[in-house]
């Protein structure tokens, strides 16, 4: 088994990259992809802590399933919003979004 610090370091790097993407980019789809990367980082951390725990609590498994469900739901929402915004002519620049409905 690897040192836990290595895996948490990878998670930190993924989280840092996605956070930088959210801070510096204004494109709606890119921000949603960055959130996906954040979810991947948290999935890796969860699995690492499950694997390194000699007597893991089942709530860790539930948390992992929750992460999978949120990531899948987010992708569905992303594609739906993307197609909807594109055909409605809405700007993908999130700083220009000011209305909830067009």
């Amino acid at each position, binding site marked *: 088994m690897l040192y836990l610090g290595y895996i948490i370091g990878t998670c930190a790097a993924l989280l840092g990259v996605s956070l930088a993407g959210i801070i*510096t980019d204004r494109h709606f*789809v*890119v921000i949603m992809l960055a959130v996906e990367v954040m979810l991947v980082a948290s999935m890796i951390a969860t699995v690492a802590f499950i694997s390194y725990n000699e007597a893991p609590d089942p*709530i860790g498994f539930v948390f992992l399933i929750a992460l999978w469900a949120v990531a899948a739901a987010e992708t569905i929402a992303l594609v739906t919003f993307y197609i909807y915004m594109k055909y409605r002519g809405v700007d993908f620049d999130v700083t220009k979004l000011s209305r909830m409905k067009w």
Partner: protein
Amino acid sequence: MYPTNADVYAYAIISIITVLSSILIFVQKRLIYSAIALALVFAGSALIFLELGQALLALVQLLVFVGGISTYLIVAIAAEEKGAKLYSPYIFIAAAVAISLVLSLIAGAVPSATGAGSSSFLSMAASAFETYYPLLYAMMFLLMAATIGTIVVVKKFVRLVV
């Protein structure tokens, strides 16, 4: 049990590929390439699961995320893509390096523990299904709500266009 050099090198390669793929998401000009880079991040995470001894989770990650979600995302974006992304790659790279360094320093504080062995995922899953089944039902409803919402939005949109 201490990690062997082969383990560490394999993990280093997987980790570098995963992090580089995540950077590629933000520096690509076309969204389709960003979606493909995200698929690589998913595949890298599956390999990390495998490295952690969780073969079943790695398989699920590959099947659901690389095989399902990434394909869905790539096909949807490829079909509908227009224009270039709004981004400034230099600012992104500077911010990514700064934030990753800070987070890695924080991660350095994590004790260098090695696990005694991989926990049995299946036995834990069985226990979770017995104890926390309402939470699992809630997640199922989340996915169902997302899917129904998609159908409602797309149906409305199709009616407008056709």
